[in-house]
């Protein structure tokens, strides 16, 4: 930005240049040699220092961490991660009075790296830990707690088309593979009888950053299309064959809103709160479902997932393509990660009293009071079975091997 300033002030060229011009014959080379010398010295120092291991220090200086993670005040808790769940998390920390709960909405990836480096008390992510991330978690390991439910919906910008355009997994995969390039194609027309589709090229929008929404979306495409499955798979980042990238759910929403003929995918609450047109998606029963809290909840119920052990591998847990006739097919859990033994994990930087506060907060989130805040913000409350599962998981968290006394506020 300094160049901006140099441009704003009139004089930079005039006097310095004329003097420079006069001196240049002798001085130019000297100045250059000096500059090169300084650069060489800096590089030498750094290479030397690098070889001598100066720069090896403790982990976690990535800068993503929310400040004051391990606060000395016993009743202050900190978490970080998912932007998808952030509105709900902020609501929870605002109404929960027994502890001060801080949450940094920095993204699922940062949430995972923050819990790995123990700079927060809990991490939040819309995607489960993948195998390398699980290995990276230091002893004693973390438990995975599914704490709310979202859904990915296709959003589009087609002026003049009202209602919810219909999509199938095959059509969406073809669009995102770059095989289907025009809105006015027979496959889309067949499933949308009576709709006049424009003769316009499809502008594909995807996430440019790692994202739990991408995880859910690419899982759905992989289930629908074999080429997608073998070439691109499902992950939080995808090496997209076509399209433009945008940052975050908000970025995708905005890009689709300003780009004619665009298609994108976001979590349902972003589509609803921003008033963007979103499509109905065909489920395995053949019905086209417009996502809402009821059919997302029934999808999660009908998916009837058998959860792995709390410390197990959650990577393949999915609630997509549930069998019920009215189930929305692209639902996803979002998760919290907490260490199994808080005393062993954090040592002296987490007191027993802080650990008690943390466990109480987690129990309150999954309990009836916490879950009652979900629906008004377009999140789906957990099923009673999941609440029971989560409660058992949270009760299993220990402090230096000893069970933690809990006292959940109402």
């Amino acid at each position: 930005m300094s160049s901006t300033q140099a441009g704003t002030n009139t004089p930079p060229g005039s006097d310095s240049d004329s003097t420079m011009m006069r001196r240049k014959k002798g001085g130019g080379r000297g100045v250059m040699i000096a500059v090169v010398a300084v650069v060489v010295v800096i590089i030498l120092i750094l290479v030397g220092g690098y070889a001598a291991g100066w720069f090896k220090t403790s982990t976690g200086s990535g800068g993503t961490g929310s400040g004051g993670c391990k606060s000395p005040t016993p009743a202050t808790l900190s978490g970080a991660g998912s932007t998808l769940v952030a509105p709900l998390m902020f609501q929870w920390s605002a109404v929960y009075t027994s502890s001060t709960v801080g949450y940094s909405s920095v993204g699922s990836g940062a949430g995972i790296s923050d819990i790995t480096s123990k700079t927060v008390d809990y991490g939040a992510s819309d995607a489960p830990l993948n195998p390398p991330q699980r290995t990276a978690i230091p002893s004693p390991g973390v438990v995975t707690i599914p704490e709310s439910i979202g859904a990915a919906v296709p959003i589009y910008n087609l002026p003049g088309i009202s209602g919810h355009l219909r999509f199938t997994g095959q059509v969406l995969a073809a669009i995102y593979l770059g095989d289907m390039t025009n809105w006015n194609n027979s496959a889309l027309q067949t499933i949308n009888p009576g709709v006049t589709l424009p003769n316009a090229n499809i502008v594909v929008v995807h996430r440019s950053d790692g994202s739990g929404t991408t995880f859910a979306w690419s899982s759905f495409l992989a289930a629908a299309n074999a080429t997608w499955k073998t070439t691109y798979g499902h992950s939080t980042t995808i090496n997209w064959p076509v399209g433009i990238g945008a940052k975050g759910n908000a970025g995708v929403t905005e890009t689709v809103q300003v780009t004619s003929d665009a298609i994108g995918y976001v979590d349902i609450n972003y589509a609803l709160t921003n008033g963007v047109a979103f499509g109905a998606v065909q489920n395995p029963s053949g019905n086209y479902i417009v996502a809402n809290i009821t059919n997302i909840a029934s999808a999660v119920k009908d998916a009837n997932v058998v959860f792995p052990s709390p410390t197990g591998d959650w990577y393949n847990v999915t609630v997509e393509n549930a069998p019920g006739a009215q189930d929305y097919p692209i639902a996803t859990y979002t998760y919290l990660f907490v260490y199994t033994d808080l005393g062993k994990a954090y040592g002296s930087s987490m007191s027993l009293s802080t650990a008690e506060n943390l466990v109480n907060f987690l129990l309150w989130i999954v309990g009836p009071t916490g879950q009652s805040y979900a629906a008004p913000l377009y999140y789906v409350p957990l099923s009673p079975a999941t609440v029971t599962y989560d409660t058992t998981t949270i009760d299993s968290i220990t402090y230096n091997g000893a069970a933690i006394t809990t006292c959940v506020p109402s």
Partner: protein
Amino acid sequence: MTRGNPFRPSSSRRTLRAPRIGDRIFFVLTLIGALGVVAVLIAVVAALFHGAQPALQQYGFSPVFGRIWNPSDYVYGFVPFILGTLVTSTIALLISVPLSLGAAIFLTQHAPLWLREPVAQVIQLLAAIPSVVYGLWGLIIITPLMAADVNPALASYLGWTGLFGGPTNYGENLLTASIVLSIMTVPTITAFSRDAMEAVPRSQKEAAISLGATHWEVTRRSIVPYARSGIVAGIVLGLGRALGETMAVTMTIGNRNAIPTSLLSPAQSIPSLIATDYFEAITPNEIPALFEMALILLLITLAVNIGARAILARLALGSGVGAE
């Protein structure tokens, strides 16, 4: 320091300046300032090395030649972003340099006096516009224009060059980012060129005219050679801005993490990737890889600066003071 005798010859070496405490303090303060600036540079480079260390240990500098960036497969290749950065900056300068030189020549040689100052002020106002505003303008105005009219026209008339192939419906692409960058660099280059041209002595111009030179010949033979070093300095600063610009590029380049196939395809630059990826980086070595890329960007900017200084020094030596 006795007040009555300011000219007391304390020692022969100190005849000119008495040791004043204020001067000493001022000297130390300026020294701290100078050393502080150098220290900040070293600290920044050290922090980059520190952050990049895991990636450097595992991959060395091989990612610089890697063609694919796919963190979820632990593949970190920088080529798409190095390419995106260099291509957008180069095209931006190809557009902005002629524009800026034209503006500078007009403002110093041809414009009526009453017009010079206002127009120069307006051009400099461009430099005061925050880059996010340029980004918004690019996103809202330029992008739809590109998708609707410019891209198809370029593809049909210049498609044979191979530079404008592929789908034409993406308004966010290499060319859009380059255009926005070119407008952002115009004020810098114009200001420097104008100042340099204004510094050309009247006698220089009058001598050329007296030899029967036309307007064009005066400008080409007499004004531009004399002002050359100022113009190059402006171009270097402009290039520096283009290489490092983050916000406006992020909003207009399309953020596609792959090697662009044409000037009309969405792409990604180094600063833009770092800004968008950092907070959502997922895999273990992704952040170190981003740090390593920042290091590469720093090296590129450094190389450009040193190279430009070398050119500058040679120009000044070679041309001397314009025509003798």
